């Protein structure tokens, strides 16, 4: 009996999700024994034609990580959707847009300008930019085009399950593979991770006071971080109170506050909104000017509360207000 086929593809990705597969360590042996990687461009020499040659639904499951922005990524994920029975959005980028999603705060033109002309180390006096196609002696060369916005995977193709995290904790990947193989899967659309917030699993929860009132926020480099006390209580912006658990609180154990990479729990509609609501409620002040002054210590609200989830947020991208006087 042939092993079920699996795919592992990357879109706008840093490669960390691929490394998380390697992090399975010894468990990788069992995984490889149970499934057949039919498409894993990072690790093995597969080409697009290999996918195109497959029958529809030939792959039992395809894990896709990275956000979607380029025409190539768009085409690939559509193709993989056709050829897979299950699509699992793997990692924060596929789940919510991830770090690349922060590009939605800019328009494409200003991004290209920055990257190709303006960065401190760029030397490009002619302002050369990548183009969709060019003709060279050998023929026509093409490059993928870029969409105006970064998207999460489910904004491009229907997604069956999500494995959150940046990168996803390896136990979640292992459990997902086991679930796929055994057929014991939750309802479609579920996130394959516990459905409660990190505080429940945090080793420092006992030190979190019941009367927490925050005077101002501190960034990790600004204080000597106590290794045992609740990080929010120390004034650090820890999003553990509203971020999905399942990561074994590795960041907290590393003495750093949670930045929200696992996304929200299922009952929340907008992760950043829920976090802004929760955290600001705990400010000590009642006078408007004191509140504003305290919030000045939140240096970058979008980057803080929507670090991994701008495309998945209700606003999706920065709003372009019409020019003054026009509509």
């Amino acid at each position, binding site marked *: 009996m042939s092993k*079920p086929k699996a795919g592992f593809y990357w879109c706008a990705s840093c490669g960390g999700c691929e490394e998380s597969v390697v992090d399975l360590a010894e468990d990788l042996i069992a995984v490889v024994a149970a499934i057949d990687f039919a498409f894993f461009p990072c690790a093995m020499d597969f080409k697009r034609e290999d996918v195109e040659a497959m029958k*529809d*639904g030939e792959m*039992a*499951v395809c894990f896709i990580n990275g956000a979607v922005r380029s025409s190539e990524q768009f085409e690939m994920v*559509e193709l993989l*959707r*056709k*050829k*897979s*029975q*299950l699509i699992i959005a793997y990692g924060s980028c596929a789940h919510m847009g991830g770090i690349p999603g922060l590009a939605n*705060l800019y328009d494409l033109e200003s991004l290209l300008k920055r990257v190709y002309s303006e960065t401190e180390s760029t030397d490009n006096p002619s302002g050369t930019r990548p183009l969709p196609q060019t003709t060279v002696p050998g023929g026509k060369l093409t490059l993928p085009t870029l969409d105006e*916005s970064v*998207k999460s995977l*489910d*904004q*491009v*193709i*229907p997604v*069956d399950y999500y494995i959150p995290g940046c990168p996803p904790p390896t136990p979640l990947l292992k459990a997902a593979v086991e679930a*796929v*193989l055994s*057929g014991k899967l939750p309802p479609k659309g579920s996130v394959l991770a516990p459905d409660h917030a990190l505080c429940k699993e945090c080793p420092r929860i006992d030190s979190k006071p019941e009367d927490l009132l925050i005077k101002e926020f501190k960034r990790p480099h600004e204080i000597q971080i106590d290794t045992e006390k609740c990080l929010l209580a120390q004034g650090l912006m820890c999003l553990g109170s509203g971020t999905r658990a399942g990561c074994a609180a590795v960041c907290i154990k590393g003495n750093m506050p949670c930045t929200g990479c696992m996304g929200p729990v299922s009952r*929340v*509609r*907008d992760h*950043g*909104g*829920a976090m*802004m*609501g929760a*955290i*600001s*409620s705990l*400010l000590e*002040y*009642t006078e*408007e000017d004191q*509140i*504003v002054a305290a*919030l000045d210590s*939140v240096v*970058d*609200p*979008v980057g803080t*509360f929507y670090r991994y989830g701008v*495309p*998945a*947020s*209700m*606003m*999706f*991208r*920065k*709003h*372009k*207000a*019409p020019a003054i006087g026009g*509509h």
Partner: protein
Amino acid sequence: MSNLSLPQTAAGNDGFEPRIVAFFCNWCTYTASDLAGISRMTYAPNTRVIRVMCSGRIEPQLILAALRKGADGVLIGGCHPGDCHYQVGNYKCLRRFKLLKRYFEQMGIEPERVRLEWIAASEGDKVQKVTNEMVEQVRKLGPLNLAEPPKPHHQAAVCAVAAEGAVS
């Protein structure tokens, strides 16, 4: 604006009528809104009031949802500081609102579109004034037209085999 003025359709505005979702707290703002009605104060018809018991119930997700679903502006009404029927709920609302405003600043939402007002139960005229003012401001700004997040093309999709749920 006088009691009897109608919302004027600005020239060149294509007759755009802003839609404003208003979250009013039961004890102060909603009561004041009723009082404005009892006193027959006329104001712009562009707001749609959603009643909550306290402005402390209002959180960013509700405001974001309103904008996402098509509102051109959101108005929040609560009791004056110190007068909250539940002591301090309005302060929580204020804190959340201030942070949300910082977020909206970064995200390019014009400040006039999301507004927090303290309106006491006896201030029916303030409901009238604030509503008229905000509608005019938002009308000048034009429709919000937030970018729509895309949806997958092939919803029905995908794969007949996937529908069976079997793994081969």
